[in-house]
Each structure stands twice: as structure tokens, then as C-alpha cells.
């Protein structure tokens, strides 16, 4: 848009900007009625654009070429997925493949290779990986001290890990989101109390708290989820609070406030959505930590009950047979490490996507 007080201004011959979006420069060829090109800059004001006059193009006296900083233009939607971004999305997808595989194994695996915690096959006990059993089936990962198939145990264990990992992150994430957002939004004593609790909890080795609570509650999958949620909500609360504090001061939030938005609308429409992004990053990191914590608790006999073959429990079970059957402790631990590794890699990639500043740094 051109605003000008100059009667000499006639019109624009041509305009071009480089690059086509983002911030850049703008070149205009402006047709003037008179000869006074020197005053072109004063005569013309292109909206909020600062224009510096260039030497008039030779031979075309009435036309003045003007160049200045172009207004920032949003990239058109059709152009958004550039090659680089598509590559990054593809990388994220490829990075997520091991995780998808884990999900698939956890959901489908126990159906294909069902785990039977009751049947004892003493004739098949402590068979090494790859051994063909009497019924003609092959024990791919070997069998344990009562002849139970280890592959079936690992597959069932994947299901428990996944269940505990996702439920805990969902529960701790929800509690953390709510407490963090409310603390950050309302401030005051609510904020003070929440954050002091968080400080104390962070200054306290979280696995100790988990051991204490799980030991008191007794072994069950629900108790593990409750215990780990109780030890993990703090991280989510801190991140949600930080996001809330920075969003609260943003212009669009002030604008919404000025338009008369109530607390519910402010929180639901503006504050909470802004906290979701950072929380997703935290959540991907936390899933891995929670899976390790669950395995640790089950390893100590404080996690899942003994009829549930959680990876940690199977690893503990194999300790008594390290001399004769190395595979019992090794296999579930390998699965555990691979899953945590996959989750960690994926978490890194999600963070890089959402926070490009962190790219190649941490």
C-alpha cells in the first residue's frame, strides 16, 4: 500500500521482492509526474516500509526505482513443506519406526506367541535360544527354569512396559499440566506451595520415593503407575508453569484479556495449548525414564506382581541362573535397552523439530 502526500506520484510500474516470503527487500519502479526525482523518498511512504531512493533508471525519466526493506510476509501455505522440512518429517518418521515396531510387538506379540504363566514344562527347562523343543516348536530366545518360553515372556513384558510407560506419562502429564498451568496463571500462594513441593521432591532421589511408595502399596500394575506418576508429575508441572508464565505476557493474551475473555476461556484457548508443545517433548523423554523406573522396581520385587512377566522381574529371575542360562537375564534387558534407546532417539528428534535452537547442541 502506498500512502503519499505527493501530487507527483502517479503509480507503480512494477514491484518485486526477494525472497518471496520472510523478511527481505522490496524494489519498486514508481512513475512520477514531474522531474524532481531527488525528493522521491520524501514524497513516497510505502506503508511501514522504509524506502531509500536509488538512482533513477536511465532514459526513463518519470520512473524512479525505489528499494527498501519489505514487510515480513508469511510463507504461503502451499509453499510451506519445503524439501528440507519434508526431509525432516521423513527423518522423524524413520526415527519413530523402532517405536512403531515396539508398539506393534506389544499389541500383537502376545496374541501370536501367548504367554502361559501357569504351565510348568520341566522337560524343557533352561533350553538355550534356538533350541527345538519336543513339541516341534523352536524356543527362539530359550526357556526359563520351569520351561516357560522366554520370547513369550519378553513379548508380554513389552505390553506391561508400554502400559506403564504410557499410563504414567498420561497421568503425570495431566496432573503436571493442570498444577503447572494453574500455578503459573494465578500465581500467589498456589504457585508458592506447588513450586516448593516440586523443589523438595526434585531435591529427593525420585527412585527412593518410588521404592518407598511402591514398597508400602505392594506390587500391582496400578500401584506402579500411581507410584511413578507421583514421582514424575514435577517435571511436567515445572515445564507447564514456565510455558504459562511466558505465554501470559504475550500480546495475543493481553488482547484476549482486553476483549473480555474470562479465566476459563483464557486457560482453555490460549494458555493450555501453548504449554502442550513443550510438554510433548518432556513426555517423550519421560516415557523412557518411566519404563526404566518400572523395570527397576520390578527388578527389586516392588513393581508388578510375580505372575506378570515384566522385563525387570524376568531379569531378576534370571540372576539365579547366570552360570547355566545367561539368556534369561540378557534377553529382556536387551529389549528394555533397545526400547529406551528408540524412545530417547525419537525424543531428541521431536525436540529438534519443535525447538530448532537446540539442534546439534544438547
Amino acid at each position: 500500500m502506498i500512502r503519499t502526500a505527493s501530487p507527483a506520484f502517479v503509480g507503480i510500474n512494477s514491484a518485486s521482492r526477494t525472497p518471496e516470503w520472510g523478511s527481505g527487500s522490496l524494489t519498486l519502479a514508481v512513475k512520477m509526474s514531474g522531474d524532481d526525482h531527488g525528493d522521491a523518498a520524501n514524497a513516497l511512504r510505502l506503508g511501514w516500509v522504509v524506502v531509500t531512493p536509488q538512482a533513477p533508471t536511465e532514459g526513463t525519466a518519470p520512473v524512479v526505482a525505489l528499494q527498501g526493506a519489505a514487510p515480513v510476509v508469511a510463507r504461503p501455505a502451499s509453499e510451506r513443506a519445503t524439501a528440507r522440512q519434508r526431509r525432516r518429517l521423513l527423518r522423524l518418521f524413520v526415527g519413530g519406526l523402532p517405536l512403531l515396531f515396539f508398539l506393534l510387538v506389544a499389541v500383537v506379540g502376545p496374541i501370536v506367541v501367548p504367554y502361559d504363566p501357569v504351565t510348568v514344562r520341566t522337560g524343557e527347562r533352561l533350553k538355550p535360544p534356538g533350541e527345538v523343543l519336543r513339541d516341534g516348536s523352536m524356543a527362539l530366545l530359550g526357556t526359563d527354569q520351569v520351561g516357560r518360553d522366554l520370547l513369550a515372556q519378553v513379548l508380554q513384558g513389552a505390553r506391561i512396559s508400554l502400559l506403564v510407560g504410557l499410563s504414567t506419562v498420561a497421568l503425570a502429564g495431566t496432573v503436571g499440566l493442570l498444577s503447572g498451568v494453574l500455578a503459573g496463571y494465578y500465581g500467589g500462594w498456589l504457585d508458592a506451595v506447588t513450586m516448593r513441593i516440586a523443589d523438595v521432591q526434585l531435591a529427593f532421589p525420585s527412585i527412593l520415593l518410588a521404592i518407598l511408595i511402591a514398597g508400602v502399596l505392594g506390587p500391582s500394575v496400578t500401584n506402579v503407575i500411581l507410584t511413578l506418576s507421583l514421582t514424575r508429575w514435577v517435571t511436567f508441572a515445572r515445564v507447564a508453569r514456565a510455558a504459562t508464565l511466558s505465554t501470559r505476557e504475550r500480546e495475543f493474551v493481553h488482547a484476549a484479556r482486553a476483549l473480555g475473555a474470562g479465566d476459563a476461556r483464557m486457560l482453555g484457548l490460549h494458555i493450555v495449548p501453548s504449554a502442550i508443545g513443550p510438554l510433548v517433548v518432556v513426555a517423550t523423554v519421560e516415557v523412557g525414564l518411566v519404563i526404566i523406573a518400572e523395570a527397576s522396581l520390578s527388578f527389586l520385587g516392588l513393581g508388578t506382581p510375580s505372575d506378570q512377566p515384566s522385563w525387570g522381574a524376568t531379569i531378576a529371575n534370571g540372576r539365579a541362573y547366570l552360570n547355566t542360562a545367561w539368556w534369561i537375564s540378557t534377553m529382556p534387558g536387551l529389549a528394555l535397552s533397545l526400547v529406551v534407546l528408540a524412545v530417547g532417539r525419537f525424543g531428541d528428534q521431536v525436540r529438534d523439530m519443535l525447538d530448532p535452537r537446540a539442534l546439534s547442541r544438547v
Partner: protein
Amino acid sequence: MTTYVVRRLIFSVFVLWGALTVVFLAVRAVPGDPAQMMMGPNATAAEIDALREKLGLNRPLVVQYAAYMVQTIRLDLGESLRLAQPVVALVAERLPTTGKLALTAILIAVAVSFPLGMAAAIRPGGLLDGVVSVVSLLGQSVPGFWLGIMFILIFARSLRLLPSAGDESLAHLILPSITVALPLVGVLTRLVRSGLLDVLDEDYVRTARAKGLTPRAVMWRHAIRNMLIPVITVVGLQIGHLLGGAVITETVFAWPGVGTLLVDAITNRDYPLVQASILFITALFVTINFLVDLSYGALDPRIRLQ
């Protein structure tokens, strides 16, 4: 500096109080009767009543809490239900063993992570950087207790090089301390690398280079010193994970520290011993964090003034 020290001290006491309260509430939040749970299913009603009387569980919660706090301040945490000894003595006896394990692990972690992280930061994206990032990712992903078992399998059972249980000699320390150190190596290496990369981007480093200092002088006199502050903060926070890892690693290697004591106490529902173990580990952690706070207050004058 004095105000800073006093403020950190008050916070440490506050944390200890919080930990005490959490332990107090957790033991009493048991669904059902704590005395019944501690005695197990075979106890008679009279035995349970006696224990309830002994632990003061009949009194109102507030009175119990006040008595508990007074006892704690006097370091009189009662007797172990199974071992019939004062729990404070039991824990104090084990504390140096855990301290030895934790300290060795920290030393190993620092000795390994700093050279690795620095080497990776000197040429980001290089071969060494790639290797370091894989190693640190592994260090953070592989659960310590399983790694300990694998170490036993390889170095104790197959190669018969190192002992797998106990704390009699220096050789006994090797496998457990490496197991405890590895997750910290993972975190610390990443941190040293990213911290150094950030610092090397700073103007004062460019100035130092421009005035003709050798790369070695720039590194040691300017970059590393400034990289230390965030790294030390995180080391302090990671000590908590390290102590938690030590608790579990101790049970893997039958290391006779507070960790094995705690896990045994939990399994036996010996709550006075549980309380004392957790209190001491938290106290150890809070003390280390306090020292870390002091050290970076000394390193960075800006922190003292805040």
C-alpha cells in the same frame, strides 16, 4: 556470600524436613493397619497391639508427627523390627560403604566425561563426536541394574577376572562403580560438549582468539572455566539419580551399603529401618547439593548476588 550460604542452608533443612514428612506420611498412608503389615500375616492380635503401642500408632496423627520430628532431631529413630538394634547405628555403619561406591563412581564419571565431551566439542559433527554421542546415548538408555548383571556375566562368570559380590578388596569396587558411573557419563559428556560449544561461541572467546592466544590457552583459560558452572549445577542434581542408581546397583553386586539395607528393610516391612535409610541417603544427597551450590557460588560471583 554469607547470605547466600545461609539461604542455601535453610533450603537444605527445608528439603530434609520435606523428605521426613513424605516418609512419615507414606508409611502411615498404607491402606489398612501399618502394624498388621509390619508384623505379617502370622502375627497374633496381642503382638500387633504391642507393636502399635511401641510405635505410638494409637495416638493422633499430629501427636505422632510431633514425636517423630523430636525423635529425628535427637537422631533417635527407634529400633529395627527384625534386627533389634538402633536403626541409626545400622545405617551409620553402612553409610561409608555407600559413600565409597558413590564417590568412586563420581570420580570415574568426571574423569571420563570431561575429556570425551571436550574432544567431541572441538570438532562438532566429526567422527569422534559421533562416537561420543552414541556412547552417551547408550549410557543414558541402558538400565544400570541390567548392565551390572551383564558385567557379572562377562567379567566374573565367563572371564573370571573380577569378583561379582561383596566389598572386601579394591577389585570388588571396579564393576559396581563403573555400573553406577555410566549413566552419569552419558549425561555429563553431553553437557560438557554442549556447554563448551556454547562458550566457544561467545564474544570473549573470539576476542581471546583475535588477540592471538594459542588454542590451548583459549580453551583452558577462557572456555573451560566458564563451561564449568552449568555443568557443576547439573552434576549436583544428577547426584540424586546416582544415589538412586547406587541403591539398585548395590543389590546387584551384594554391596553391603545403605541401598541393600533399604531394599531388605522394604521387603521385610521394617519401617523404622526404612525411615532411617531414606533419611540418611537424602541427607547425603542434600549435603552434596549444598556443597555443589557453594562451589558454584564461589565460581560465579553473579550467583551470590542474586
